């Protein structure tokens, strides 16, 4: 089997690049893989059998892409990486792996900031929710409301579902939601992490009673959904605030955070880092006692960060929202978005006095990771899904062609009723082509 795998690759600053790197060994065992990356440079792979091309080149070699049986696109919420991949997907079609189901911000960045085509962004909103959605889009464009606010009402997931041969999600709660919006076959797969033998040796907290509690928060922390501002505020108001330490790394406004911490007198308790390599991340995580991995509002994402946290048997706080709300209570501590500050204070206090239940969660998380998130199992299930997606492909293109074709031929027909009759006739004819 020959397949195209469209994804960012290391050293791109997205965990989806690491996800692909983790999957390559089992993928290469099942298929001849060609990687297509939205970047011009990548970390050299240890697998010479896998070749790499970049999708930024002016003329893509379509024959090479077309002659491979399957094309699998990794779609996340960062337009820098996924915008160019989506450009290819929209022309070529394929199986989409949705790392996030809320694609509003990605589409806005891609169309408004990238292509400078706000009308294309509004057209997507129009297809999603008609005039009401367009009005919301205009308010986003004028800065009246935040993207998060608009994204909650119009996640724009549909924008990548039309024409998909199959859809893979990493979040079981999103499976049903996505399946109701497409006729393409859908599959839930637990996000893969490293194979058990490659996991770092977990170091559970050697914290003694009375020692400060070392918190860690990392990843792409821009925007409100990672709750950075709320966490800093909760910390500032926490009665035992001088017993907490915080390590931050990833992408965020470091100057702004530093200033906020200065203002609340907490700067000396915080360690701020920028983007870190995987080994640097693991080194920092091994020194922490508790990870904060809040997400609200949920963007329908599963969390590679959570898997990394579990790989260190590290206790973790998550939001009682989206994917995280469905997790077993034995694995994580859930913070209610409606009482975030109170919940954080409550659990920090308890952790300081009686850490055992939290430490047990960390151990259970590691166990869960080893049993449910191996790359080999992920690839096997994905391969088993491909024939089903392949069968749907014949219909998938018709979904893209039919609206385009009816628009092209119907527009000269002046009377709306005649148009409707023609549309019905054509739709019935095309429906009769399906097996």
């Amino acid at each position, binding site marked *: 089997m020959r397949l195209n795998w469209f994804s960012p690759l290391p050293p791109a600053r997205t965990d989806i690049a690491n996800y692909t790197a983790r999957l390559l060994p089992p993928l290469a065992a099942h298929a001849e893989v060609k990687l297509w990356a939205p970047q011009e440079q990548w970390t050299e792979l240890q697998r010479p059998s896998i070749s790499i091309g970049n999708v930024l080149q002016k003329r893509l070699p379509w024959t090479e892409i077309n002659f491979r049986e399957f094309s699998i696109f990794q779609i996340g919420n960062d337009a820098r990486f996924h915008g160019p991949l989506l450009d290819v997907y929209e022309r070529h079609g394929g199986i989409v792996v949705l790392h996030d189901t809320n694609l509003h911000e990605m589409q806005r960045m891609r169309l408004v900031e990238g292509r400078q085509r706000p009308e294309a962004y509004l057209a997507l909103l129009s297809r999603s929710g008609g005039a009401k959605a367009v009005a919301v889009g205009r308010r986003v464009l004028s800065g009246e409301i935040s993207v998060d606010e608009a994204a909650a009402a119009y996640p724009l997931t549909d924008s990548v579902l039309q024409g998909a041969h199959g859809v893979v999600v990493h979040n079981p709660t999103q499976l049903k939601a996505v399946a109701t919006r497409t006729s393409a076959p859908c599959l839930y797969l637990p996000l893969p992490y490293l194979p058990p033998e490659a996991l770092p040796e977990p170091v559970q907290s050697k914290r003694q009673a009375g020692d400060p509690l070392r918190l860690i928060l990392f990843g792409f922390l821009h925007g409100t959904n990672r709750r950075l501002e709320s966490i800093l505020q909760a910390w500032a108001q926490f009665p035992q605030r001088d017993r907490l330490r915080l390590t931050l790394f990833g992408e965020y406004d470091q100057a702004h955070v530093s200033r906020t911490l200065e203002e609340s007198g907490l700067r000396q308790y915080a360690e701020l880092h920028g983007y870190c390599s995987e080994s640097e991340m693991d080194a920092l995580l091994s020194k922490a006692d508790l990870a904060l991995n809040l997400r609200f509002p949920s963007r329908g994402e599963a969390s590679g960060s959570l898997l990394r946290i579990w790989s260190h048997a590290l206790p973790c706080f998550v939001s009682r929202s989206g994917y995280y709300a469905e997790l077993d209570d034995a694995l994580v501590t859930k913070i209610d978005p409606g009482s975030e500050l109170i919940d954080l204070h409550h659990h920090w206090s308890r952790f300081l006095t009686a850490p055992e239940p939290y430490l047990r969660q960390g151990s259970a998380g590691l166990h869960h990771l080893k049993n449910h998130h191996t790359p080999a199992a992920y690839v096997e299930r994905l391969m088993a899904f491909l024939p089903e997606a392949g069968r749907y*492909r014949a219909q998938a293109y018709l979904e893209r062609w039919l609206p385009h074709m009816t628009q092209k031929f119907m527009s000269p027909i002046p009377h709306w009723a005649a148009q409707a009759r023609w549309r019905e006739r054509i739709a019935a004819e095309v429906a009769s082509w399906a097996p």
Partner: protein
Amino acid sequence: MRVLVTTVKVPFVYGGAEIHAGNLVTELRRAGHEAELVEIPFRWYPPEQMLDHLLACRLLDLTEANGVAVDRVIGLKFPAYHVRHPHKVLWILHQHRTLYDLWDTRDADLAYYPEGADIRHSLVGIERQLLHEARHLYANSENVAQRLTRFSGHTAEPLYHPPEHAEAFFHKPAEQYLFYPSRLCGLKRQRLVIEALAETKAPVVVKFAGKPDHPDYLRELQELARNKGVDQRIEWLGRISDEAKRDHYARCLGVVFPPLDEDYGYITLEAMLSSKPVITCQDSGGPLEFVLDGQTGLVAEPTASSLAQSMDQLWNTPEKAQEMGAAARDRYADLRITWKHVIDRLLHAS
């Protein structure tokens, strides 16, 4: 019976398919039927046009004309053979080959478009479904029937028909040249013949007749012949009249015809009618249904060296060439390739 023959027409292009459709209508009329040709213009690029054209064909109503029922529709080519009719039979000249046997080759023009693979999957799936509508499926040759089974899962009965003016072919004593009459294009592999010519040990001469699909292609072939040092042993006749063609068939030592996976191949039949042996290749498709290796012609491997060996063999043994030519003429007679048989089968399919 009132019979409509449906096919597609690329405006300003006239070739074997057009001749074939016209002959079928003529022979239907000769057999006492009312017959008309319905030619639907066709463009296959950009590839979504194929779906547009398919839909256009499906929206046509050919069940009656002027209030009188049309008794039969005979579909010949994609997508015209997908018109709706309750008594439709298909006599498939070939499916749209870039969707099937030519996919995954450099001739797959469809694959140069981003959406090419998706459109191919759609059309293959649609065709598999729509072929069920026909009362009976016939194919132009066993080769076309086999492709239909392989790619679309349908069984078709091969139905051979005579080439145009079959009765006019004749035979004369052989002169020292091999004849290759055909359109000049990649699939017909004139290039392979030139490369083989460069590897022959005997001073083999080849006369090519036919017009190039693209003028550049003729220039490329001529340049190749010069580079290989065989241009003096090649004659480019260009497009010739039917009479001149028959005369060349009659006077040649043998016919060389090594296309890639030909559907049917009038050239083989015309050579047989002229009592001439045919050199073809193992992957040439239709000709292999008629050429018996060593008896009515020679079947080479599709390489320059193997083809050269066969050309040398024919050149060096003219008596054997004559013997194989006579056997080829007998074989044509044995196959009972007649229009009467074709029309009986097409109109009386259940």
